[in-house]
């Protein structure tokens, strides 16, 4: 047994293996015996971290001693950081291992699920609920172990009678009772539902509904399920190419009535689990997954991958989700205390995209990505993909395009965001939809340097990117004070004002926009700061009224 680690002096910190809003996870070595550990450094100065919450998590993990749960090895404070030392699991998360493709071998699935069931049985017997069971939180080791991790949102029930009322978890893995939050809250059985989702995910590569719905819609779909058949139909269980036992196992996990849903102990005796219980080459099966992933990484030139979990951050995600909720424009709001999908920070691939944009793009995945796109190259299959030829265009250009390529991810992100906003706020016809898609594509194609024919030197002195120059001129033209043209025709000026109103965001004031001549604009533009802000409309109007108040105050001292 490894002794507790109580100070940083006992450790050697190696490479980073995971990162999130909370801080960073490193691989480390215990100096005394060269054993590997995972070091999670939590930045306590970060205002998202609540010491009491962290303490709860540590309490829960420190009370768990089971081979199927990542072992807690100690923790201490160094400066403003809390170091939590955990057992290092060297094979990566199940989520990572699914990247090369889903696992179709039922033996392997059964073995992994069995280990997780053992962990759940242990937790549940102690009144603990994991509450965020998903493939990212299942780690595998090269020696064939399977371990449950990330107890960031887990909870301790004070008795078997008590229940929890907070809604936490990650959408696609959440049980209906957790989402609905009625009947006095949820209990252990919520983990069983999530386990079913994991099993489904292993076989299909994605948790149920992720291919069909964005997170919020999925939540609504899950919560609508009243009969077992509703959900099973939704995920098309009967059409899945799996054994009878596996089907039955999934059906037992996806029982809507929590009293009827099997417990971990009962599921351990399910035929799907017992059938393969005594398979001898178990470590080999797990090992094969890890080797597969390594080969896949090599083929796809991925040098850096996360092999530790990224903890779920409730606070951040809640914000993100509510935002999305607003954008989707739904009829009803759920009280959110959710943690969410956590996409690993974008790996070093050609088109990293922000978690939010990739999440949004899930919706249109099928329609938006051109058929023969660079699947192999895209780390995130659900990210908006741009066709191969574009890449080739830019790749063909000389190295000066390097700068332009550096701007690419951000530019793609912006285009994605604009597109999705447009799409969610309006009902687009197919033609419009396609036109916008091609507009985005053209814009992206123009993300290259302008060619100067006349002067070679100028290329170095004055690198200009076509698309940006285009946009700049466009904006310049639109925002140009139309006073000059006003001499020619008043009609012309008016239409220019109209254009400005239509094109320029309201919270975006243009310097010298004195066209309107009247005091109206003079007043707004002169002393209002230029706010290229992320203010939403409410904030903006609040801000406006605040400015007005300030002005009044200024007038009457």
């Amino acid at each position, binding site marked *: 047994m490894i002794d507790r680690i109580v100070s940083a002096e006992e450790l050697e910190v190696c490479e980073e293996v995971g990162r999130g809003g909370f801080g960073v996870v490193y691989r480390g070595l215990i100096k005394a015996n060269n054993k590997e550990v995972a070091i999670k450094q939590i930045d306590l*100065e970060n205002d998202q971290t609540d010491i009491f919450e962290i303490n709860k998590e540590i*309490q829960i993990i*420190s009370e768990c001693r089971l081979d199927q749960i990542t072992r807690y090895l*100690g923790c201490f*404070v160094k400066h403003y950081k809390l170091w939590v030392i955990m057992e290092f699991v060297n094979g990566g998360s199940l989520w990572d291992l699914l990247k090369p493709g889903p696992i179709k071998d039922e033996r392997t699935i059964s073995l992994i699920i069995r280990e997780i069931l053992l962990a759940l049985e242990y937790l549940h017997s*102690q009144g603990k609920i994991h509450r965020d069971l998903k493939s990212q939180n299942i780690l595998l080791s090269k020696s064939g172990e399977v371990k449950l991790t990330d107890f960031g949102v887990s909870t301790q029930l004070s008795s*078997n009678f008590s229940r929890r009322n907070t809604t936490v978890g990650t959408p696609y893995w959440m049980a209906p009772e957790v989402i609905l939050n009625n009947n006095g809250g949820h209990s252990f059985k919520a983990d069983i539902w999530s386990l079913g989702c994991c099993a489904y995910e292993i076989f299909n590569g994605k948790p149920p509904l992720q291919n069909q719905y964005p997170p919020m819609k999925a939540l609504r779909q899950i919560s609508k399920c009243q009969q077992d058949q509703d959900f099973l139909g939704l995920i098309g269980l009967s059409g899945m190419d799996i054994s009878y036992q596996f089907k039955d196992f999934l059906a037992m996990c996806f029982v809507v009535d929590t009293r009827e849903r099997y417990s971990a102990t009962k599921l351990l005796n399910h035929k799907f689990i017992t059938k393969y219980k005594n398979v001898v080459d178990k470590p080999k099966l797990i090992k094969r997954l890890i080797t597969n992933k390594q080969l896949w990484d090599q083929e796809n030139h991925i040098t850096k991958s996360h092999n530790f979990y990224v903890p779920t951050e409730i606070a951040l995600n809640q914000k993100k989700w509510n935002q999305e909720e607003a954008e989707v424009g739904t009829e009803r709001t759920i009280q959110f205390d959710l943690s969410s999908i956590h996409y690993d920070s974008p790996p070093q691939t050609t088109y990293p995209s922000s978690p939010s944009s990739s999440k949004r793009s899930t919706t249109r995945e099928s329609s938006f990505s051109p058929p023969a796109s660079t699947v192999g190259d895209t780390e995130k299959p659900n990210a908006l993909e741009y066709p191969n030829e574009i890449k080739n265009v830019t790749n063909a250009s000389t190295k000066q395009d390097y700068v332009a390529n550096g701007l690419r991810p951000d530019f793609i992100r912006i285009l994605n965001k604009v597109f999705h906003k447009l799409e969610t706020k309006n009902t687009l016809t197919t033609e419009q939809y396609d036109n916008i898609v091609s507009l985005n594509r053209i814009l992206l194609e123009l993300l290259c340097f302008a060619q100067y024919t006349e002067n070679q030197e100028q290329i170095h002195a004055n690198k200009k990117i076509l698309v940006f120059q285009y946009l700049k001129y466009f904006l310049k033209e639109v925002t140009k004070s139309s006073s000059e043209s006003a001499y020619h025709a008043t009609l012309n000026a008016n239409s220019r004002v109209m254009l400005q109103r239509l094109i320029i965001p309201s919270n975006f004031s243009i310097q010298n926009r004195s066209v309107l001549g009247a005091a109206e604009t003079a007043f707004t533009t002169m002393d209002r700061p230029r706010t290229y802000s992320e203010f939403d409309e409410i904030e903006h109007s609040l801000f406006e009224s605040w400015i007005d108040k300030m002005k009044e105050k200024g007038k009457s001292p």
Partner: protein
Amino acid sequence: MAFLFKRNPKTPQELVRALNESVSKLDVSSDNSKKYQDECTRFLTQVKVVLHGDDETDPQPDQISFLAQEIYATDCLYYLIANLKKLNFDSRKDVLIIFSTLLRRQIGSKSPTVDYLINSKPEIIQILIRGPESQEIGLICGQILRDCIKYEVINRFVISSPLFWNFFQYVHLPVFEIATDSFTTLHDLLTIHKKLVSEFLANNYDQFNTQINKLIQSNNYVTKRQSVRLLSELVLQRQNQLFLNRYFDDSNNLKIIMILLSDKSKNLQIEGFHIFKFFVAKPKKSQRVLDILAKNKDNFIEFFNTFDIQTFNDANLVDERDYILGEIQKLPEIERIN
């Protein structure tokens, strides 16, 4: 498998007696300790099943009542807590579950376990208070104790005990989770039963003030932050008026808080500000506090002009800062005081 104890003990009474016997044997011989540990584990699991039922069976009220009576009559809880360290790792958590379940048991308006703890075996509570002294059982004891002090009588018992002051030492323990767990207990002890606490703080002002100030001046960032947070919470309690009057008249406290304001940590600065504002806003300030404030008037003005609170995104905070700044500007010039 309606009841697990088909073999061995048949009734709840027998079960408790068997458990007691195994627990007592943990003490005696070390050779067979593993065997008795396992026995305890088994009996504890069975007790849990009687109390909670299992997948197939719901708990039976009459069985529970027999069990509880036997537990009180034989001081079973006492032996379990006293030997907690000798039980194996997972059994300790069963003790926690059993203890908590019994604690919540009510007969009419009475809580038999609470009565038992206060009237028959207060030693149990004393062992629990001293739990953090052992790394192995500190967390379990902490959780049980926090369950106990939800009952005002027990909370009163704990803060009246001289052992209560040990918590101010425990929060310094090098094992992080024990230290923070002790802090959680300390926090609960001083925030759950408001009236009780206001009485306590009024009667023990000096000792409490010395202790909390020591924590605020600790080198450990977490201890520092948690203790300032606790103080902030106490300060916001209207019931604690008597304590507050004394606290905010004490110029030494002001100094400690001013040091916090100049800490490198943003969070500590903000926490410090939330206490500092009361020194300034208090209508009748003591002369010594007033002197310090006036003497540092220019420093404060400069400090608050550069006080970076943007990152906290809190409109109230801005208002408060502006108000406090205004109040400071109204302070008399130093010459007039001298």
